[in-house]
């Protein structure tokens, strides 16, 4: 196969969740378009974005569902949790209430996804240091207690945005390699490229990849 844009070996499905206005859509936009949207309208229901990334020499396509934070769309957005391989849970470091709601977001995620789903906590808007309402230490402790990965990021400056999406993918990829994540399970949120539906056997894919993988 040639290295065109359609050559990738896996699809990982992500969801982005969190209170309204914390910057979920901006994070997605920053990640897919490398731009900041200063006046982004509230998401109605769900939105969608994709990007192909490189993890350990493997091309992986991320299919990302950006959900609405508004309470009235909760029923819509809940139906997108199932089958997510990664969940980015976002709060706004300048608004304590968005941090306080994390435990209910986490409960939803744990209930609606499967045990191998990687949950990544993002404290967004870290460019607004002066208005900080939640300390790094506090959030970091919360993440540790709940077994989440964590960074503070800014959709505005782009700080740590790539990292959050890529680290999540690495973790998922590791789970596949360790055999913790079953590719054939309906809810794994991971697939082989659609045009090669027969290739559900991991070993055949790995033969070509290099061993100097850092993850």
């Amino acid at each position, binding site marked *: 196969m040639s290295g065109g844009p359609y050559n990738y070996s896996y699809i990982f499905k992500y969801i982005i969740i969190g209170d309204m206005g914390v910057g979920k859509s901006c994070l997605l936009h920053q990640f897919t378009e490398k731009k900041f949207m200063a006046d982004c309208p509230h998401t109605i229901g769900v939105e*969608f*974005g994709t990007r192909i990334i490189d993890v350990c020499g493997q091309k992986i396509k991320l299919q990302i569902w950006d959900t609405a934070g508004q309470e009235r769309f909760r029923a819509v957005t809940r139906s*997108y949790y199932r089958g997510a391989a990664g969940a980015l849970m976002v709060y706004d470091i300048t608004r304590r209430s968005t941090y306080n709601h994390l435990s209910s977001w986490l409960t939803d995620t744990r209930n609606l996804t499967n045990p191998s789903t990687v949950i990544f906590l993002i404290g967004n808007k870290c460019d607004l240091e002066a208005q900080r309402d939640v300390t790094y230490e506090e959030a970091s402790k919360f993440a540790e207690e709940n077994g989440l990965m964590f960074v503070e990021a800014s959709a505005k400056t782009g700080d740590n945005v790539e990292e959050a999406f890529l680290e999540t993918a690495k973790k998922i990829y590791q789970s596949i390699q360790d055999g913790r994540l079953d590719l054939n399970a309906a809810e794994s949120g991971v697939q082989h490229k659609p045009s090669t539906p027969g290739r559900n056997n991991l070993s055949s894919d790995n033969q070509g990849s290099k061993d100097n993988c850092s993850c």
Partner: protein
Amino acid sequence: MACFWLNSQETRVKIPITEEQENTVFYIIQVFVGEIYWSVKHRYNDFYELNTKLVNDHGVAKDILPCKKLLRSKCPEFIENRRHGLEIYLQKVLKFLKLAMPRVFLEFLDFHLYDVYFILQSLALKFYSEADSYLSSAKTYNFTTLEVHAITKCCNTPLPAENTSDKRYDLTHVFDFSSQLNILYINGISGTYLRSIIKPNELMYDFKVFKKVNTLSLNEVCLESIKDLGQLRTTLKNLTIIKSNMTSLCQILQCDVLHKYTFDNAQVWNALTVMDLSSNCLTDIDPTISLTPNLEVLILDQNRFSSIPNLLQLEKLTRLSMCSNLITTCQEIHLRLGNIQHLNLSQNSITSLVGFSKLYSLVSLNLTANNIHDIEEIKYLSQLPCLEDLKLTGNNVSTIVDYRVKVLEYFGTRAEEICLDNEQPLQPELDKVSIRRALKILKEGSTPAILNTR
């Protein structure tokens, strides 16, 4: 449109009647989902095949289908009994399979044609295997209004994002594909859809998932059903809206704005260079045209214009087509069109060319099938320095004796550069033109200027 997952409590099946066709009895099934219903017909044998699959793969009880009987199967009482039996059969199966809705069963009842979720599943299956071949070439796809409505609805309605364990039917394939399209065609379906009461053109849709579309073509749609086209303002380069009863430009350029004629910089369609609004009901161009300052090509064929509209605000416009309108007079068009190079006014009722005399940038002019009678009219074109391509067929003037020579004569020394009615002038024609010009000069007694002798 039907939405089974939101209305599974209000979903019913009936078999009210039967129908005989070429010696075969068909049972007409009616499916009701909320306020929507449709019909689908099957023979007994179809039921039998369905039942075999349902019994084998989906745990449906063996003995609920009315049994196969070969004798007397045309007798009305027998058919009536069987109709009743099959109705009860379907009702039982629906109740039993309501949560799973296996593909064989929903396709038997045509859910995949009328239901938001199952239409999307069919699309998902298609894109699962074919998306790459579409996306690696032109990145173009034809959707129906029904399908784009289903996509829109799916983003705003609590549907099970993944209800089968079969990844081929995962709706994400549809969104992934849609988000990468560059060229999007949406085709309306007028009236009711197939055997349902669904009116596809009345269904709302938006463009939220079509993030990378730069070329949009809407064909026979209802403009009132479009939500939020404005999202494409900064990216859309090429817009086509045909056969959609458009009466005013603001319907589309300001579709998401309440006060249509108050503009704001944020509402400019900056990237738009080509717009085709053929086969609508336009009679004039409203002031919203100033929201498309970069337009280069404008096509207004088959509308109801009675004159050429004022397009001076379109500084970059080089090509205008207004075939098959109701244009009779064209006065001082240079005050309306500015720097136009290609003008197609075929199939109108234009009688005089006086208004064209100052369109100095004009390179091609198509006046096929108008009402130009008098050869004298051509003199108004004779001073256009760039004109190279002129079409006059289908006018009375083109039937007079020596028509080509007479027309070419008006262009004097430039006659050889004029392609008339798709034909370059032939040498004998040019010779005749030269002779006629020489004679004329002699007759009028003026000194021959630089006479074109070749």
